[in-house]
Protein backbone atom coordinates (compact mmCIF):
# COMPACT_ATOMS: atom_id res chain seq x y z
CA UNK A 1 0.00 0.00 0.00
CA UNK A 2 1.14 3.54 -0.73
CA UNK A 3 -0.14 6.25 1.61
CA UNK A 4 0.15 9.90 0.66
CA UNK A 5 -0.23 12.34 3.56
CA UNK A 6 -0.75 16.08 3.14
CA UNK A 7 1.44 16.46 0.07
CA UNK A 8 2.00 20.00 -1.24
CA UNK A 9 4.28 21.05 -4.06
CA UNK A 10 4.96 24.36 -5.77
CA UNK A 11 7.14 25.46 -8.68
CA UNK A 12 8.48 29.03 -8.91
CA UNK A 13 5.95 30.26 -6.35
CA UNK A 14 2.99 28.60 -8.10
CA UNK A 15 1.38 25.94 -5.96
CA UNK A 16 0.63 22.82 -8.03
CA UNK A 17 -0.44 20.36 -5.32
CA UNK A 18 -2.54 21.41 -2.32
CA UNK A 19 -2.41 19.22 0.76
CA UNK A 20 -3.33 15.90 -0.93
CA UNK A 21 -3.92 12.84 1.21
CA UNK A 22 -4.86 9.50 -0.31
CA UNK A 23 -4.23 5.76 0.05
CA UNK A 24 -3.44 3.54 -2.93
CA UNK A 25 -4.34 -0.01 -2.11
CA UNK A 26 -2.42 -3.20 -2.64
CA UNK A 27 -3.62 -5.57 -5.40
CA UNK A 28 -5.85 -2.90 -6.92
CA UNK A 29 -5.66 -0.74 -10.00
CA UNK A 30 -5.53 2.76 -8.52
CA UNK A 31 -6.21 5.62 -10.91
CA UNK A 32 -5.34 9.30 -10.73
CA UNK A 33 -7.54 11.28 -13.08
CA UNK A 34 -7.87 14.97 -13.82
CA UNK A 35 -7.64 17.56 -16.55
CA UNK A 36 -4.36 18.40 -18.23
CA UNK A 37 -2.45 20.71 -15.89
CA UNK A 38 -4.41 19.59 -12.83
CA UNK A 39 -1.24 18.28 -11.16
CA UNK A 40 -1.62 14.52 -11.61
CA UNK A 41 1.80 14.05 -13.23
CA UNK A 42 3.42 16.14 -10.46
CA UNK A 43 1.67 13.94 -7.89
CA UNK A 44 2.87 10.77 -9.62
CA UNK A 45 6.41 12.14 -9.92
CA UNK A 46 6.34 13.11 -6.24
CA UNK A 47 5.21 9.61 -5.28
CA UNK A 48 8.02 7.94 -7.25
CA UNK A 49 10.54 10.43 -5.90
CA UNK A 50 11.31 12.38 -9.08
CA UNK A 51 10.05 15.52 -7.27
CA UNK A 52 10.68 16.26 -3.62
CA UNK A 53 7.38 17.54 -2.11
CA UNK A 54 7.45 20.83 -0.17
CA UNK A 55 5.57 19.24 2.71
CA UNK A 56 3.87 15.96 3.60
CA UNK A 57 4.86 12.31 3.61
CA UNK A 58 4.64 9.36 1.22
CA UNK A 59 4.71 5.88 2.78
CA UNK A 60 5.52 2.73 0.83
CA UNK A 61 4.15 0.06 3.15
CA UNK A 62 5.20 2.19 6.09
CA UNK A 63 8.52 3.41 4.62
CA UNK A 64 8.56 7.18 4.18
CA UNK A 65 10.26 8.03 0.85
CA UNK A 66 10.40 11.77 1.68
CA UNK A 67 12.88 11.25 4.53
CA UNK A 68 14.87 8.39 3.02
CA UNK A 69 18.59 8.64 2.37
CA UNK A 70 19.76 8.46 -1.24
CA UNK A 71 20.87 4.85 -0.73
CA UNK A 72 17.54 3.83 0.83
CA UNK A 73 15.68 5.51 -2.01
CA UNK A 74 17.81 3.67 -4.57
CA UNK A 75 17.01 0.37 -2.86
CA UNK A 76 13.29 1.20 -2.82
CA UNK A 77 13.35 2.04 -6.51
CA UNK A 78 14.36 -1.52 -7.26
CA UNK A 79 10.89 -2.49 -6.05
CA UNK A 80 9.30 -0.04 -8.48
CA UNK A 81 8.32 -0.58 -12.10
CA UNK A 82 7.30 2.37 -14.22
CA UNK A 83 5.60 2.70 -17.57
CA UNK A 84 6.27 6.13 -19.06
CA UNK A 85 3.97 8.10 -21.34
CA UNK A 86 6.38 7.74 -24.27
CA UNK A 87 7.43 4.20 -23.27
CA UNK A 88 11.05 5.38 -22.68
CA UNK A 89 12.53 2.22 -24.16
CA UNK A 90 16.28 2.42 -24.80
CA UNK A 91 16.63 3.11 -28.53
CA UNK A 92 19.99 1.42 -28.91
CA UNK A 93 18.80 -1.88 -27.44
CA UNK A 94 16.57 -4.65 -28.77
CA UNK A 95 13.34 -5.50 -26.98
CA UNK A 96 15.03 -8.42 -25.24
CA UNK A 97 17.94 -6.23 -24.11
CA UNK A 98 15.48 -3.60 -22.85
CA UNK A 99 13.60 -6.16 -20.75
CA UNK A 100 16.84 -7.74 -19.56
CA UNK A 101 18.35 -4.37 -18.61
CA UNK A 102 17.06 -4.15 -14.99
CA UNK A 103 17.94 -7.82 -14.50
CA UNK A 104 21.46 -7.29 -15.90
CA UNK A 105 21.85 -4.31 -13.60
CA UNK A 106 20.54 -5.69 -10.33
CA UNK A 107 20.09 -9.45 -10.51
CA UNK A 108 22.77 -11.93 -9.48
CA UNK A 109 21.20 -14.70 -11.54
CA UNK A 110 23.06 -16.32 -14.43
CA UNK A 111 22.66 -15.02 -17.98
CA UNK A 112 20.50 -18.05 -18.84
CA UNK A 113 18.17 -17.37 -15.91
CA UNK A 114 17.98 -13.65 -16.66
CA UNK A 115 17.15 -14.33 -20.28
CA UNK A 116 14.51 -16.88 -19.29
CA UNK A 117 12.88 -14.32 -16.97
CA UNK A 118 12.95 -11.67 -19.71
CA UNK A 119 11.40 -14.08 -22.22
CA UNK A 120 8.68 -14.92 -19.70
CA UNK A 121 7.85 -11.21 -19.37
CA UNK A 122 7.89 -10.75 -23.15
CA UNK A 123 5.57 -13.75 -23.49
CA UNK A 124 3.30 -12.28 -20.80
CA UNK A 125 2.75 -9.16 -22.90
CA UNK A 126 2.32 -11.23 -26.09
CA UNK A 127 5.43 -9.99 -27.84
CA UNK A 128 7.19 -13.29 -28.47
CA UNK A 129 8.76 -13.19 -31.92
CA UNK A 130 9.66 -9.50 -31.60
CA UNK A 131 12.39 -9.88 -29.00
CA UNK A 132 15.22 -9.01 -31.38
CA UNK A 133 13.51 -5.92 -32.80
CA UNK A 134 14.53 -2.41 -31.82
CA UNK A 135 11.93 0.02 -30.36
CA UNK A 136 11.78 1.93 -33.66
CA UNK A 137 10.56 -1.25 -35.38
CA UNK A 138 7.64 -1.66 -32.95
CA UNK A 139 4.21 -0.01 -33.16
CA UNK A 140 3.01 2.35 -30.41
CA UNK A 141 0.97 -0.38 -28.71
CA UNK A 142 3.84 -2.88 -28.93
CA UNK A 143 6.20 -0.30 -27.42
CA UNK A 144 3.81 0.16 -24.48
CA UNK A 145 3.61 -3.60 -23.99
CA UNK A 146 7.41 -3.83 -24.20
CA UNK A 147 7.67 -1.12 -21.54
CA UNK A 148 5.27 -3.09 -19.33
CA UNK A 149 7.46 -6.18 -19.81
CA UNK A 150 10.52 -4.18 -18.71
CA UNK A 151 8.62 -2.72 -15.77
CA UNK A 152 7.61 -6.14 -14.43
CA UNK A 153 10.95 -7.87 -15.12
CA UNK A 154 12.19 -7.34 -11.56
CA UNK A 155 8.85 -8.47 -10.10
CA UNK A 156 8.09 -5.04 -8.62
CA UNK A 157 5.84 -4.46 -5.61
CA UNK A 158 4.73 -1.13 -7.02
CA UNK A 159 3.82 -0.34 -10.63
CA UNK A 160 3.34 3.20 -11.93
CA UNK A 161 1.86 3.99 -15.32
CA UNK A 162 1.91 7.55 -16.65
CA UNK A 163 -0.79 7.96 -19.30
CA UNK A 164 -0.37 4.42 -20.68
CA UNK A 165 -2.97 4.95 -23.41
CA UNK A 166 -1.81 8.25 -24.83
CA UNK A 167 -1.43 8.07 -28.60
CA UNK A 168 -3.10 4.66 -28.86
CA UNK A 169 -6.32 3.71 -30.64
CA UNK A 170 -9.27 2.66 -28.40
CA UNK A 171 -8.84 -1.05 -29.14
CA UNK A 172 -5.13 -1.08 -28.30
CA UNK A 173 -5.89 1.02 -25.20
CA UNK A 174 -8.22 -1.70 -23.97
CA UNK A 175 -5.48 -4.31 -24.47
CA UNK A 176 -3.04 -2.20 -22.41
CA UNK A 177 -5.63 -1.57 -19.68
CA UNK A 178 -6.47 -5.27 -19.49
CA UNK A 179 -2.79 -6.15 -19.27
CA UNK A 180 -2.13 -3.66 -16.46
CA UNK A 181 -5.18 -4.87 -14.53
CA UNK A 182 -4.27 -8.56 -14.97
CA UNK A 183 -0.65 -8.04 -13.93
CA UNK A 184 -1.81 -6.10 -10.85
CA UNK A 185 -4.08 -8.91 -9.70
CA UNK A 186 -1.76 -11.79 -10.68
CA UNK A 187 1.16 -10.36 -8.72
CA UNK A 188 -0.81 -8.56 -6.01
CA UNK A 189 1.07 -5.30 -6.58
CA UNK A 190 0.12 -1.70 -5.88
CA UNK A 191 -0.55 -0.11 -9.25
CA UNK A 192 -1.10 3.59 -9.80
CA UNK A 193 -2.24 4.69 -13.26
CA UNK A 194 -2.21 8.32 -14.25
CA UNK A 195 -4.81 8.77 -16.98
CA UNK A 196 -7.46 10.90 -18.56
CA UNK A 197 -8.78 8.06 -20.70
CA UNK A 198 -12.41 7.56 -19.68
CA UNK A 199 -12.46 3.97 -20.97
CA UNK A 200 -9.73 3.20 -18.40
CA UNK A 201 -11.71 4.94 -15.65
CA UNK A 202 -14.79 2.83 -16.29
CA UNK A 203 -12.90 -0.33 -17.28
CA UNK A 204 -10.19 -0.83 -14.67
CA UNK A 205 -10.69 1.88 -12.00
CA UNK A 206 -10.94 0.09 -8.66
CA UNK A 207 -9.79 3.08 -6.64
CA UNK A 208 -9.99 6.43 -8.41
CA UNK A 209 -8.65 9.77 -7.22
CA UNK A 210 -9.95 12.82 -9.09
CA UNK A 211 -7.68 15.85 -8.89
CA UNK A 212 -8.89 19.34 -9.67
CA UNK A 213 -6.54 22.35 -9.57
CA UNK A 214 -3.99 20.38 -7.58
CA UNK A 215 -6.40 19.29 -4.85
CA UNK A 216 -8.08 15.95 -4.23
CA UNK A 217 -11.67 16.55 -5.33
CA UNK A 218 -13.21 13.06 -5.24
CA UNK A 219 -12.35 9.45 -4.54
CA UNK A 220 -14.24 6.26 -5.34
CA UNK A 221 -14.44 3.37 -7.80
CA UNK A 222 -15.67 3.08 -11.39
CA UNK A 223 -19.26 2.28 -10.36
CA UNK A 224 -19.34 5.27 -8.03
CA UNK A 225 -18.15 7.51 -10.87
CA UNK A 226 -21.41 6.78 -12.68
CA UNK A 227 -23.58 7.64 -9.72
CA UNK A 228 -21.58 10.49 -8.20
CA UNK A 229 -23.19 13.90 -7.87
CA UNK A 230 -19.84 15.68 -7.82
CA UNK A 231 -20.29 18.33 -10.52
CA UNK A 232 -16.57 18.81 -11.22
CA UNK A 233 -16.12 15.06 -11.64
CA UNK A 234 -19.16 14.73 -13.89
CA UNK A 235 -18.09 17.70 -16.01
CA UNK A 236 -14.70 16.06 -16.50
CA UNK A 237 -15.66 12.40 -16.95
CA UNK A 238 -18.83 12.99 -18.93
CA UNK A 239 -17.68 16.00 -20.92
CA UNK A 240 -19.35 15.24 -24.26
CA UNK A 241 -23.10 15.33 -24.91
CA UNK A 242 -22.95 11.69 -25.94
CA UNK A 243 -21.37 10.56 -22.67
CA UNK A 244 -23.77 12.74 -20.65
CA UNK A 245 -26.70 11.02 -22.37
CA UNK A 246 -25.08 7.63 -21.83
CA UNK A 247 -24.75 8.35 -18.10
CA UNK A 248 -28.39 9.39 -17.92
CA UNK A 249 -29.43 6.13 -19.60
CA UNK A 250 -27.28 4.04 -17.23
CA UNK A 251 -28.65 5.87 -14.18
CA UNK A 252 -32.20 5.39 -15.46
CA UNK A 253 -31.56 1.65 -15.77
CA UNK A 254 -30.05 1.51 -12.27
CA UNK A 255 -33.06 3.28 -10.75
Amino acid at each position, binding site marked *: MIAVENISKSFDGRQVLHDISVEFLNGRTNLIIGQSGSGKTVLLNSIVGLHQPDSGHIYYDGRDITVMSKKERTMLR*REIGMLFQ*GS*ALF*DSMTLLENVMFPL*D*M*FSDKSYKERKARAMLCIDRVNLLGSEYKHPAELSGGMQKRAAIARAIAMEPRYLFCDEPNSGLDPKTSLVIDKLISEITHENNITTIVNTHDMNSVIGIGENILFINNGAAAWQGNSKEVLTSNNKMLNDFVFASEFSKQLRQDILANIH
Partner: protein
Amino acid sequence: MIRKMLQSLGEYLLLMARTFQRPERMRMFLKQYYKEMMALGINSVGIVLLISLFIGAVICIQIKLNIQSAWMPSWVSGYTTREIMMLEFSSAIMCLILAGKVGSNIASEIGTMRITQQIDALDIMGVNSASYLILPKVAALVSFIPILVTFSVAAGIVGAYCTAYLANIITPADLTLGLQHSFTPWYFWMGVIKSLFFAFIIASVSSYYGYNVKGGSIEVGKASTSAVVSCSVLILFSDIFLTQLLS
Protein backbone atom coordinates in the same frame (compact mmCIF):
# COMPACT_ATOMS: atom_id res chain seq x y z
CA MET B 1 25.97 36.42 -16.66
CA ILE B 2 28.68 35.65 -14.07
CA ARG B 3 26.01 34.18 -11.80
CA LYS B 4 24.78 31.97 -14.65
CA MET B 5 28.33 30.83 -15.40
CA LEU B 6 28.94 29.99 -11.74
CA GLN B 7 25.65 28.13 -11.61
CA SER B 8 26.60 26.13 -14.71
CA LEU B 9 30.02 25.38 -13.19
CA GLY B 10 28.36 24.18 -9.99
CA GLU B 11 25.93 21.98 -11.92
CA TYR B 12 28.79 20.58 -13.98
CA LEU B 13 30.83 19.74 -10.86
CA LEU B 14 27.82 18.09 -9.19
CA LEU B 15 27.20 16.05 -12.33
CA MET B 16 30.84 14.98 -12.38
CA ALA B 17 30.60 13.98 -8.70
CA ARG B 18 27.68 11.72 -9.62
CA THR B 19 29.50 10.47 -12.70
CA PHE B 20 32.72 9.42 -11.00
CA GLN B 21 31.19 6.83 -8.73
CA ARG B 22 31.82 3.13 -8.71
CA PRO B 23 29.67 1.50 -11.43
CA GLU B 24 26.80 -0.57 -10.05
CA ARG B 25 27.70 -3.50 -12.30
CA MET B 26 31.18 -3.82 -13.72
CA ARG B 27 29.96 -6.04 -16.58
CA MET B 28 27.48 -3.33 -17.64
CA PHE B 29 30.19 -0.67 -17.42
CA LEU B 30 32.57 -2.74 -19.53
CA LYS B 31 29.82 -3.40 -22.07
CA GLN B 32 29.12 0.33 -22.34
CA TYR B 33 32.85 1.13 -22.36
CA TYR B 34 33.39 -1.21 -25.31
CA LYS B 35 30.38 0.28 -27.13
CA GLU B 36 31.61 3.84 -26.58
CA MET B 37 35.14 2.89 -27.59
CA MET B 38 33.71 1.77 -30.93
CA ALA B 39 31.36 4.74 -31.33
CA LEU B 40 33.67 7.54 -30.17
CA GLY B 41 37.12 6.10 -30.85
CA ILE B 42 37.18 3.59 -33.70
CA ASN B 43 34.59 5.54 -35.69
CA SER B 44 36.79 8.65 -35.47
CA VAL B 45 39.90 6.98 -36.87
CA GLY B 46 38.88 7.60 -40.49
CA ILE B 47 38.31 11.34 -40.15
CA VAL B 48 41.48 11.76 -38.07
CA LEU B 49 43.59 9.93 -40.66
CA LEU B 50 42.05 11.81 -43.57
CA ILE B 51 42.45 15.30 -42.07
CA SER B 52 45.93 14.60 -40.66
CA LEU B 53 47.14 13.20 -43.99
CA PHE B 54 46.10 16.31 -45.89
CA ILE B 55 47.22 18.78 -43.21
CA GLY B 56 50.64 17.05 -43.03
CA ALA B 57 50.96 17.36 -46.79
CA VAL B 58 49.81 20.99 -46.83
CA ILE B 59 52.14 22.05 -44.00
CA CYS B 60 55.07 20.47 -45.84
CA ILE B 61 54.17 22.22 -49.11
CA GLN B 62 53.63 25.61 -47.41
CA ILE B 63 56.92 25.47 -45.54
CA LYS B 64 58.82 24.33 -48.62
CA LEU B 65 57.32 26.95 -50.96
CA ASN B 66 56.96 29.94 -48.60
CA ILE B 67 59.48 29.60 -45.78
CA GLN B 68 62.41 27.58 -47.11
CA SER B 69 65.09 29.62 -48.84
CA ALA B 70 68.67 29.21 -49.96
CA TRP B 71 70.14 30.19 -46.61
CA MET B 72 68.07 27.67 -44.69
CA PRO B 73 69.05 24.04 -44.23
CA SER B 74 67.28 21.54 -46.49
CA TRP B 75 65.71 19.73 -43.54
CA VAL B 76 63.58 22.71 -42.39
CA SER B 77 60.37 21.57 -44.12
CA GLY B 78 60.44 18.07 -42.63
CA TYR B 79 61.47 19.33 -39.22
CA THR B 80 58.74 21.99 -39.09
CA THR B 81 56.08 19.55 -40.31
CA ARG B 82 56.98 17.07 -37.58
CA GLU B 83 57.02 19.69 -34.82
CA ILE B 84 53.68 21.23 -35.83
CA MET B 85 52.02 17.84 -36.10
CA MET B 86 53.37 16.60 -32.76
CA LEU B 87 53.06 19.78 -30.73
CA GLU B 88 49.78 21.26 -31.85
CA PHE B 89 47.88 19.68 -34.69
CA SER B 90 47.59 16.09 -33.47
CA SER B 91 46.54 17.18 -30.01
CA ALA B 92 44.81 20.59 -29.95
CA ILE B 93 43.54 21.01 -33.52
CA MET B 94 42.52 17.38 -33.84
CA CYS B 95 40.61 17.64 -30.55
CA LEU B 96 38.88 20.78 -31.85
CA ILE B 97 37.76 18.71 -34.82
CA LEU B 98 36.70 15.88 -32.52
CA ALA B 99 34.75 18.37 -30.38
CA GLY B 100 32.60 18.95 -33.45
CA LYS B 101 32.19 15.29 -34.35
CA VAL B 102 32.17 13.52 -30.99
CA GLY B 103 30.92 16.40 -28.80
CA SER B 104 27.77 17.00 -30.83
CA ASN B 105 27.19 13.25 -31.00
CA ILE B 106 27.38 12.89 -27.20
CA ALA B 107 25.22 15.95 -26.46
CA SER B 108 22.50 14.97 -28.92
CA GLU B 109 22.47 11.32 -27.83
CA ILE B 110 22.14 12.10 -24.12
CA GLY B 111 19.82 15.05 -24.83
CA THR B 112 17.47 12.81 -26.81
CA MET B 113 17.54 10.27 -23.99
CA ARG B 114 16.59 13.08 -21.60
CA ILE B 115 13.60 14.37 -23.58
CA THR B 116 12.30 10.87 -24.30
CA GLN B 117 12.42 10.08 -20.55
CA GLN B 118 15.02 7.32 -20.98
CA ILE B 119 17.16 8.98 -18.30
CA ASP B 120 14.11 9.21 -16.00
CA ALA B 121 13.56 5.49 -16.62
CA LEU B 122 17.13 4.78 -15.47
CA ASP B 123 16.66 6.94 -12.36
CA ILE B 124 13.37 5.25 -11.50
CA MET B 125 15.04 1.83 -11.77
CA GLY B 126 17.57 2.99 -9.19
CA VAL B 127 20.42 3.26 -11.69
CA ASN B 128 22.91 6.14 -11.31
CA SER B 129 22.11 7.52 -14.77
CA ALA B 130 25.05 9.95 -14.79
CA SER B 131 27.55 7.24 -14.02
CA TYR B 132 25.94 4.70 -16.36
CA LEU B 133 25.79 7.09 -19.33
CA ILE B 134 28.71 9.49 -18.91
CA LEU B 135 31.49 7.52 -17.22
CA PRO B 136 31.95 5.01 -20.10
CA LYS B 137 32.05 7.88 -22.61
CA VAL B 138 34.72 9.77 -20.64
CA ALA B 139 36.73 6.60 -20.00
CA ALA B 140 36.49 5.45 -23.64
CA LEU B 141 37.50 8.78 -25.16
CA VAL B 142 40.30 9.47 -22.67
CA SER B 143 41.76 6.00 -23.11
CA PHE B 144 41.46 6.02 -26.92
CA ILE B 145 42.76 9.54 -27.56
CA PRO B 146 46.49 8.57 -27.36
CA ILE B 147 45.87 6.12 -30.21
CA LEU B 148 44.20 8.86 -32.26
CA VAL B 149 47.11 11.25 -31.53
CA THR B 150 49.60 8.60 -32.65
CA PHE B 151 47.60 7.87 -35.81
CA SER B 152 47.34 11.60 -36.50
CA VAL B 153 51.11 12.20 -36.21
CA ALA B 154 51.80 9.16 -38.39
CA ALA B 155 49.22 10.19 -41.00
CA GLY B 156 50.66 13.73 -41.09
CA ILE B 157 54.11 12.34 -41.80
CA VAL B 158 52.71 10.03 -44.48
CA GLY B 159 51.03 13.12 -45.98
CA ALA B 160 54.37 14.91 -46.01
CA TYR B 161 55.97 11.93 -47.78
CA CYS B 162 53.16 12.04 -50.36
CA THR B 163 54.35 15.56 -51.31
CA ALA B 164 57.84 14.17 -51.72
CA TYR B 165 57.07 11.00 -53.66
CA LEU B 166 53.95 12.01 -55.59
CA ALA B 167 54.38 15.77 -56.13
CA ASN B 168 58.19 16.00 -56.06
CA ILE B 169 58.01 19.21 -54.03
CA ILE B 170 60.73 18.06 -51.64
CA THR B 171 63.20 15.22 -51.91
CA PRO B 172 62.45 12.19 -49.69
CA ALA B 173 66.01 12.38 -48.35
CA ASP B 174 65.59 16.03 -47.21
CA LEU B 175 62.23 15.21 -45.69
CA THR B 176 63.63 12.19 -43.81
CA LEU B 177 66.55 14.29 -42.59
CA GLY B 178 64.16 16.94 -41.29
CA LEU B 179 61.86 14.45 -39.63
CA GLN B 180 64.82 12.93 -37.77
CA HIS B 181 66.52 16.21 -36.91
CA SER B 182 66.71 17.05 -33.17
CA PHE B 183 63.88 14.67 -32.34
CA THR B 184 62.66 15.20 -28.77
CA PRO B 185 60.39 12.32 -27.61
CA TRP B 186 58.92 14.56 -24.87
CA TYR B 187 57.17 16.63 -27.55
CA PHE B 188 55.19 13.57 -28.56
CA TRP B 189 54.27 12.81 -24.94
CA MET B 190 53.34 16.46 -24.45
CA GLY B 191 50.80 16.14 -27.26
CA VAL B 192 49.46 12.93 -25.72
CA ILE B 193 49.14 14.47 -22.24
CA LYS B 194 47.39 17.54 -23.61
CA SER B 195 45.00 15.38 -25.59
CA LEU B 196 43.99 13.47 -22.43
CA PHE B 197 42.76 16.74 -20.91
CA PHE B 198 41.03 17.73 -24.14
CA ALA B 199 39.33 14.33 -24.40
CA PHE B 200 38.03 14.74 -20.85
CA ILE B 201 36.70 18.20 -21.73
CA ILE B 202 34.95 16.93 -24.88
CA ALA B 203 33.28 13.95 -23.20
CA SER B 204 32.31 15.60 -19.91
CA VAL B 205 31.21 19.03 -21.14
CA SER B 206 29.16 17.57 -24.00
CA SER B 207 27.54 15.12 -21.59
CA TYR B 208 26.70 18.00 -19.24
CA TYR B 209 24.89 19.88 -22.01
CA GLY B 210 23.02 16.77 -23.12
CA TYR B 211 22.11 15.68 -19.60
CA ASN B 212 20.56 19.05 -18.72
CA VAL B 213 18.39 19.47 -21.82
CA LYS B 214 14.88 20.65 -21.04
CA GLY B 215 12.22 20.78 -23.76
CA GLY B 216 12.17 19.15 -27.16
CA SER B 217 14.17 18.58 -30.31
CA ILE B 218 15.03 22.29 -30.76
CA GLU B 219 16.63 22.34 -27.31
CA VAL B 220 18.59 19.18 -28.17
CA GLY B 221 19.94 20.98 -31.25
CA LYS B 222 20.84 24.03 -29.17
CA ALA B 223 22.53 21.86 -26.54
CA SER B 224 24.54 20.16 -29.27
CA THR B 225 25.71 23.51 -30.65
CA SER B 226 26.48 24.87 -27.17
CA ALA B 227 28.46 21.73 -26.38
CA VAL B 228 30.67 22.16 -29.46
CA VAL B 229 31.22 25.89 -28.81
CA SER B 230 32.01 25.41 -25.11
CA CYS B 231 34.32 22.47 -25.76
CA SER B 232 36.20 24.44 -28.44
CA VAL B 233 36.64 27.49 -26.20
CA LEU B 234 37.73 25.37 -23.23
CA ILE B 235 40.19 23.41 -25.38
CA LEU B 236 41.74 26.63 -26.69
CA PHE B 237 42.06 28.17 -23.23
CA SER B 238 43.40 25.02 -21.59
CA ASP B 239 45.82 24.57 -24.51
CA ILE B 240 47.56 27.83 -23.51
CA PHE B 241 47.92 26.75 -19.89
CA LEU B 242 48.95 23.18 -20.69
CA THR B 243 51.50 24.28 -23.28
CA GLN B 244 53.01 26.72 -20.79
CA LEU B 245 52.96 24.10 -18.05
CA LEU B 246 54.45 21.25 -20.08
CA SER B 247 57.01 23.14 -22.16
